[in-house]
């Protein structure tokens, strides 16, 4: 796991190509990293762990020379509120293909609401002082509704339209800056 983390750190140093692109509330980021930097990171691992590594540094060098492209590139996306999220084009044959857009959107909204419900349930026992807990604060319908809206407005970083017509989503956790804004966002009308 350590090496995988290290390798991901190397990939995190990839250059962003241009600005993030926004398409109908979906953000797309394109990254590129020179193949030499990838092979260098792997060779370092192989050289530092000759007994553990299944390949020698030399073998990695040789393999890297056969890579057809000088850079590795990839695009990632995440969906903000109001994004039109559809099943991937290579899954058009799936059962989701016949599901109307409004039903699909409702399924995504329900999944986000379910995620918010779970998050709120997981923090309800946190004490707020004076023998009160977060759960007591959520008893106020106005506060719980605003917290729910706040959670469901997080960007969706993963959406999995499953063949059994379930949809699974992952909401991106808030940054410190967003989290600091939480009290203001839920108390302002």
């Amino acid at each position, binding site marked *: 796991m350590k090496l995988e983390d290290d*390798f991901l750190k190397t990939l995190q140093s990839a250059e962003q190509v241009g600005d993030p692109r926004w398409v109908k509330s979906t*953000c797309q*980021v394109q990254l590129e990293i020179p193949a030499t930097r*990838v092979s260098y990171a792997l060779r370092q691992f192989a050289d530092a762990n000759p007994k553990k590594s299944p390949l020698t540094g030399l073998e990695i060098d*040789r393999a890297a020379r*056969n890579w057809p492209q000088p850079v590795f590139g990839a695009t990632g996306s995440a969906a903000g509120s109001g994004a039109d999220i559809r099943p991937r084009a290579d899954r058009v044959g799936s059962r989701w293909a016949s599901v109307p857009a409004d039903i699909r959107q409702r399924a995504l909204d329900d999944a986000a609401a379910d995620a918010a419900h779970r998050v709120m349930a997981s923090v309800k026992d946190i004490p707020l002082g004076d023998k009160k807990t977060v759960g007591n604060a959520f008893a106020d319908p106005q506060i719980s509704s605003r917290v729910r809206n*706040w959670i469901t407005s997080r960007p969706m970083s993963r959406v999995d339209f499953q063949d059994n017509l379930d949809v699974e989503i992952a909401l991106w956790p808030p*940054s410190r800056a967003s989290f600091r804004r939480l009290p203001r966002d839920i108390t302002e009308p």
Partner: protein
Amino acid sequence: MRVPLLFLLLFCMATPLLGADTTRRYVPQYDESVRSDCVRAATSNAVRNLYDESAASNWPTISLSALISAR
């Protein structure tokens, strides 16, 4: 010249005159911090896709995932 100016003045004052609520309300999709979180999420997904992309490259006898998960 005076008539266009009068229209311009009326246009600028239309919102307060009609009593519209001019205070900013919290709308998540226009929230800068939500947008920057969205960029961060997209970047993280791009890194994950970059991992898959490099894992799919040519290796002599072993997959990249096997190499980097070697203990």
